[in-house]
């Protein structure tokens, strides 16, 4: 069997990374998007997404990977992945109309014997309900990319979950050949199971983070230290070495919110119990305000018109996404303050705050600040020296949710350093 020609439709983050990974596994890949300007940008290697390793991967792929806005080029593909990221609204609800339209467009030009794979994030029932491709050649494949680690996860998946019309039947040979190139377990199952598997993965992660948030908050109050507890949990094989046990500032980025909204919506429609999801969302909203509460208690209630330095605006490191970013929410709430901001990947917007100054680098951002809030744990922030921060800042308060700075060094520099899950340093009596 000759090596299949594979098409990817939709050059958002998912399609671009997944298509590049497949080309990296040696396949010839056609990367299609109807947006000619986007394709031109990709052809110039001006990537619209920030992912470590993506540039090197595409460069190494060479002529195996080509970008096009000509939909007809998909007609020669043996397999076409529809891989456009599905947008969500502010409530995390999925907007599928664009994806469905894309699938129709692509199906309209595909070779009738080709394989169609839906890689985009869809709710259970979507693939079976499409009705516009022969089911024996229609598959749903679960994507498990993580922003900031997407290339590695696309190149080396832990397993591949495939939704099929008939899980007992052998996978279509060309499709199997593509999946086999990743040298990992392939798990065929019915469409709905695969669609829900994707959501289930995220729900388990959310549950783990919510537990961590809940217990980390207790640590802050009772003098325990979550950083001492988490390693002990990871050594319990029922929990696991890679468990998501890092407390955070709530769910952001869009993907987790989308899947929680889907579960809530399905639960309401089918009358199943979904208190866990409601609780996770409530915990997320509550934790998001942790920096505001800390800032108020330690600075805003004591200093008139303080200068607040904010490091990081993206919702996580190694990404350009500010979707549901706690940092942006915090900046917008600090009315009456002056804000200086620095982010290594995204230029902060003036519209977020009437008194916002964009700094050129992290240290410049901290100059003269009454408080520093490290909202995104970019790796480069870990090299900041507490003693240098202490010299540059006017105030002593450092709110560091992810504990980017060394706590002992911060204390040694006379800083009032606060981190999620860490025992709170004493506050001066008001």
């Amino acid at each position, binding site marked *: 069997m000759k090596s299949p020609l594979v098409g990817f439709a939709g050059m958002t983050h998912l399609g671009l990374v997944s298509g590049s990974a497949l080309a990296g596994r040696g396949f010839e890949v056609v990367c299609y998007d109807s947006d000619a300007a986007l394709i031109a940008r990709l052809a110039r290697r001006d990537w619209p997404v920030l992912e470590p390793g993506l540039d090197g991967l595409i460069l190494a792929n060479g002529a195996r990977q080509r970008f096009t806005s000509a939909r007809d080029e998909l007609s020669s593909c043996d397999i076409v992945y529809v891989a456009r990221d599905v947008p969500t609204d502010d409530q995390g609800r999925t907007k599928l109309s664009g994806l469905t339209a894309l699938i129709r467009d692509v199906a309209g030009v595909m070779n009738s014997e080709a394989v169609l794979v839906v890689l985009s994030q869809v709710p259970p029932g979507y693939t079976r309900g499409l009705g516009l491709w022969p089911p024996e050649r229609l598959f749903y494949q679960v994507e498990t990319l993580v922003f900031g680690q997407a290339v590695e996860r696309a190149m080396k998946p832990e397993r591949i979950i495939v939704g099929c019309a008939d899980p007992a039947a052998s996978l279509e040979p060309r499709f199997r050949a593509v999946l086999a190139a990743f040298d990992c377990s392939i798990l065929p199952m019915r469409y709905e199971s695969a669609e829900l598997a994707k959501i289930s993965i995220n729900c388990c992660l959310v549950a783990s983070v919510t537990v961590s948030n809940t217990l980390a908050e207790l640590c802050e109050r009772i003098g325990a230290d979550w950083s001492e507890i988490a390693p002990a949990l990871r050594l319990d094989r029922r929990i696991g070495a890679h468990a998501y046990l890092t407390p955070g500032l709530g769910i952001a980025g869009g993907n987790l919110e989308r899947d929680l909204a889907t579960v809530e919506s399905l639960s309401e429609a089918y009358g199943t119990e979904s208190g866990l999801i409601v609780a996770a969302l409530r915990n997320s909203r509550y934790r998001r305000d942790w920096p505001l509460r800390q800032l108020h208690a330690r600075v805003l209630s004591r200093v008139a018109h303080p200068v607040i330095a904010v490091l990081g605006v993206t919702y996580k490191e190694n990404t350009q996404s500010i979707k549901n970013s706690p940092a942006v929410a915090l900046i917008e709430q600090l009315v*009456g*303050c002056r804000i200086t901001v620095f982010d290594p990947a995204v230029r902060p917007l003036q519209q977020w705050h009437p008194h916002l100054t964009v700094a050129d680098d992290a240290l410049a951002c901290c100059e003269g600040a009454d408080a520093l809030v490290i909202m995104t744990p970019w790796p480069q922030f870990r090299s900041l020296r507490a003693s240098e921060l202490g010299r540059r800042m006017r105030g002593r308060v450092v709110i560091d949710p992810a504990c980017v700075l060394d706590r002992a060094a911060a204390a040694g520099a006379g800083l009032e350093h606060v981190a999620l899950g860490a025992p709170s340093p004493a506050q001066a009596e008001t």
Partner: protein
Amino acid sequence: MTLSHAHDEPRNPARVVVLGASGFIGRRLLEACARRGIAAVGLASRDLDLADAVAAGALADRLRAHDVLVFLAALTPDKGRDSGTLMRNLAMARAVCEATRGVPIAQLVYASSDAVYSFATTLISEETPAAATDLYGAMHRLRELMLASEAKAPLAILRLTAIYGAGDTHNSYGPNRFLRQALSEGRIALFGNGEETRDHLYVADAVALILEVVTRGSTGLLNLATGTSATFRAVADMIAAYSGRPVAIAPSTRHNPVTHRHFDISNLLRAFPDVRFTSLAEGLAATFAGVRADTRG
């Protein structure tokens, strides 16, 4: 429905009308208005019985267009806990609703209570469902619903936690009662060992926040609390220390389960980022000073 402001900066309204003017908060609010140069009129029950059948018309006659009406008046549990008291309180709310339908006031600020919340939820925010378990809490919740659906004015609902300070007219369990007991009996009686935690808001801070809501033209829902709760035992110990005389703390056999209440004040901090709260220690000290001054006066 969290709080939103009509004005980016505080501005004095044309006039403030306070219902419940002789009450603990009402008196302080009128004093604060005077200090800030805000024209204000206070109406107490002796001026206008809101539960009376003709109260709506009488109130409407006293209101002017563009007034801000602060509705503090209520028959509190010490005045009655029965359904008769409930119905009188609801009649008062109905009168306010009817009066506002006839006069285009600028804003209606309703002082509700955290009694609308059940103790089944310990950490309270504005998202916490109202689930009153007694007639007093139900009264406030019903009033909120009545005002929201029938009053014709931009509405701010403020759910107040326990308020304390000198000049309190109630004798509710907590700082106010403990202080009276300490001074008059040299003894503070606790339920159980005073393990329950509650959020206590100093009256001057409550008044300051109400004035912020008034001068910003705010509408929506907000819990007024400090975000820091203390046990009744801790409060009793502080009061005993401030009293300047030996005070016995007297625990008792517990008949009801321990309940706790804490507030997530994130929405309040978003609405008023530079809010400052008087600490319990400072507030109790000021209360003592106020009570002693009142006694001497």
